[in-house]
């Protein structure tokens, strides 16, 4: 049905246009060519001017109307420290390009209106004007210099890697078709070695268990990070290109198989703080699910998200992960509750290369308990694999 309507609409537009064309031509014939040319020129010039004005006003109006969509305004304020810089350079560019936009579009449509054709009218014969051309070459050059300098200063600051002595958390985001695995380094604050050849059903990231640094690494189902602490994300991919994209934090970096990348950022607002700010905006006071008018409001269901911003295949649009920024205290609590992959699923199974060995620092008494727990998990995951 929809299709029929669309096809009908297309046909109708064409038919009506053709009819209008015929009528106009008939009218022109009646009026005489010269007269109708004159009227047409007046009309077209007028509408070009109207269009020019409408374009400017429409742009300004839409900028105002959609101000909450723009970087640095309303709910779209960056939630990270470097994001503020991105937003301010965006603003600077909006202002500079906005001025150029208005001036050039006004000139274009106004001249088209003002200098509409009249038979026999004399034109100004000016093939060039060196002075003018010099000025309008140098002006954009100056404006561009401002943008380049401010942009690059911010860029080099944002993209700088962490320094050795800095206090930061390093996590790893591994992308694959079509999800993310987020690995935390555990208590030693060091991510263990991975080798893609070791990837298997029970070891999705290919962690090398002979590296003791992997033993306390854990995989989180959400990205949880403390407010105000520098985070360095190692970004990588198992199969094709993906892109680690945190819209609210102005973070974006490709995940490339076999070629590690990283992004460093400092979250500045906890999720709760951000949500409270959203309450100020009417569009977030609406129910999240339109079918359920009394359900939770949009600001309540809102959450920071991680998405993929590089086409990676059929499930590209579904690579979502929830991101939570919490206070350092909450982070500490959450962190302590996480179970390391190794001790919860691998230790002393057949996949464990250290089977039977006593690891330094491992409490011997609990190892039996862990083992039992482990076995069940492995069986379950194997069964679920078989089903697939």
């Amino acid at each position: 049905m929809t299709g029929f309507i669309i096809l009908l609409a297309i046909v109708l537009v064409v038919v009506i246009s053709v009819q209008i064309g015929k009528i106009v031509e008939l009218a022109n014939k009646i009026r005489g060519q010269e007269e109708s040319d004159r009227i047409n020129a007046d009309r077209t010039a007028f509408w070009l001017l109207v269009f020019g004005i409408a374009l400017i006003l429409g742009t300004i109006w839409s900028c105002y109307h959609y101000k909450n969509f723009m970087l640095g305004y309303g709910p779209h304020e960056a939630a990270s420290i470097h994001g503020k810089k991105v937003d301010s350079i965006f603003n600077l560019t909006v202002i500079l390009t906005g001025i150029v936009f208005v001036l050039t579009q006004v000139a274009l449509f106004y001249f088209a209106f003002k200098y509409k054709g009249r038979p026999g009218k004399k034109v100004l014969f000016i093939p060039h004007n060196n002075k003018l051309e010099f000025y309008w070459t140098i002006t954009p050059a100056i404006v561009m210099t401002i943008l380049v300098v401010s942009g690059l200063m911010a860029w080099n600051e944002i993209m700088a890697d962490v320094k050795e002595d800095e206090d930061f958390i390093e996590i790893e985001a591994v992308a694959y078709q079509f999800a993310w695995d987020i690995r935390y380094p555990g208590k030693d604050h060091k991510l263990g070695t991975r080798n893609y050849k070791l990837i298997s059903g029970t070891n999705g990231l290919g962690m090398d268990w002979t590296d003791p640094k992997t033993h306390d690494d854990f995989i989180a189902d959400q990205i949880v990070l403390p407010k105000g602490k520098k985070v360095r994300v190692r970004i990588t991919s198992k199969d094709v290109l993906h892109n680690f994209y945190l819209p609210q934090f102005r973070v974006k970096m490709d995940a490339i198989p076999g070629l590690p990348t990283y992004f460093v950022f400092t979250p500045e607002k906890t999720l709760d703080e951000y949500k409270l700010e959203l309450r100020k905006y009417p569009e977030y006071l609406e129910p999240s699910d339109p079918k359920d008018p009394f359900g939770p409001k949009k600001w309540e269901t809102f959450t920071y998200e991680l998405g993929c911003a590089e086409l990676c295949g059929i499930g590209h649009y579904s690579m979502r992960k929830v991101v939570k920024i919490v206070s350092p205290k909450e982070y500490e609590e959450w962190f302590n509750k996480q179970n390391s992959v190794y001790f919860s699923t691998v230790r002393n199974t057949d996949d464990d290369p250290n089977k039977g060995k006593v690891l330094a620092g491992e409490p011997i008494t609990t190892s039996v308990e862990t083992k039992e727990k482990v076995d069940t998990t492995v069986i379950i995951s194997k069964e679920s694999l078989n089903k697939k």
Partner: protein
Amino acid sequence: MAALTHLEEEKLIKEQGYNDHFYDHHHGDKHQMGFITKYIFCQDHKIIAKQFLITGIIWAIIGAAMSVIFRLQLGFPEADMAWLRPFLGKWIVVNDDGIGSLDPNFYYALVTMHGTIIVFFVLTAGLSGTFSNLLIPLQIGARDMASGFLNMLSYWFFFLSSVIMLASLVLSTGPFSGGWTAYPPLSALPQASQGSGTGMTLWLISLTFFVVSVLLGGVNYITTILNLRTKGMSMWRMPLTIWAFLITAIIGLLSFPVLVAGFLLLMFDRGMGTSFYLSEIFIGGQALDNVGGSPVLFQHLFWFLGHPEVYIIILPAMGLVSEILSVHSRKPIFGYKAMVFSMLAIAFLSFIVWAHHMFMAGVNPFISNFFVLFTLIIAVPSAVKVFNWIATLYGGNVRFNSASLFAIGFVSMFISGGLTGIFLGNSTIDIQQHDTYFVVAHFHIVMGIAAFFGMFAGIYNWFPKMYGRFMNETLGQIHFWGTLIGAYLIFGPMHYIGLAGVPRRYFRFDSFETFKQFDALNQFITVCAIIVFALQILFVVNFFYSIWKGKKVTSKNPWESNTLEWTTPIKPGHGNWEGNIPTVNRWPYDYGKDGVDFIPQIKPLAEGEQHSELHQ
């Protein structure tokens, strides 16, 4: 001094032009040619131009229709698409309730094909191929291209490439679906996506043939422009169209081979198991042996072509628009030499800025500094061009018709799209805007719509030369207004969606809290897109209707233009000029000089008159 009458013109050609004895060797139209040699395997540049144009129009309809289908998905993801089943077959998945929805595989195939088709087949072949072929010999005063045979081959390679691409559309696994940029590993590994198997193979073969076509054409255009100019047609007397085609051909000649290099390496990765682009991949439950390659390498090779490619698209449009604005405002183009130098500057810069498409692709942030710097420099020559176009209108006697309106629309679009490019060229802002709808809006306006506007302006303006008839003016103006307003309504709101962070190439937005709140805007965009599509159908109807039924051209020079193509017969035969080739005595922009409306290039200088181009 006054403009020339036709009789005076003919007299001038007879007296001043020269006889190259063309008709001693060739017989022009007098020679009996069969249908096949005259219309199909034809070596005449005008026929080849028409072949390029009509193939381009067919591809444009296919490409635009694809965009309508995926816009429907984006605007109305819940709508029933079962009605498309007769056209798309199994790509519409019908559930138990009889509600049809688009297969996401096919959505990505549509997006990919839309990009490939419009960028390569329509805006490269259809625009540059058409007008380079039509105008180069006519405007420089040549009988034909330097090598008519290679010129013919150029079209037939394009045709072959088209057939292969069409074949890939009907594959059971679907055409390639990894984006028109074809980044590996997605494009290199058949197991990564359905379209990366046979679809990708055909895509690569098709585009390789396409490159052959572009190179054959390009070599021909360059040598023709350099070697076959008529007497008096010095480089600084060439119309800006010819300059644009020359520079476009040079860019194509230098950038497409690098794409081929990238493609060949990709083919080896696909077919031979080499590791140029692949490293440490675990896919489909299997760890591949490939190590040491770099997917970023392909991106570098691709964008080394890819960025010049956008200028291959826009430069011919710029040339056409410069010429049309000048003719229809009855004024010389403002700053002719500045226009040429800015085109040359743009062409040069286009080769050293490619990595600005890759700021967020893992490129060394340090080297990005240079790419930002070079990229933003492009704004300067572009601004010069815009100012010159506007200054051309100033003080003119602007004649409004479909051609000049589209030219004005082009300038407006180029301004709007160019300015958003300043955001994206700045790597800092690009952190957020990369791969969002802001990018989509930007490049559709600046190289999609703007280039189409240039193409439309060119078609309306040179249709009389191609077919000896005018296109319907009223329909043309409806087409113009609808497209102008519609294009702004489609892509204006898209900027805001992009600013809000919505990534491109998403099949649906509903799984993300951040991205799912823009349904109303998406619906609005879709509705506008359908209307604009309908208007393009109107253009096609107008085009084909006018070929046979349009108003007949009665004078040789209907637009009262200075350039040489309007000194040929209304329907020029093979060899373009009957008898002598005209000689050129002045630059092509003597409009309104000394109070004379227009002075064709063939008219000698009057006593004491100065060359206008000398003072540049």
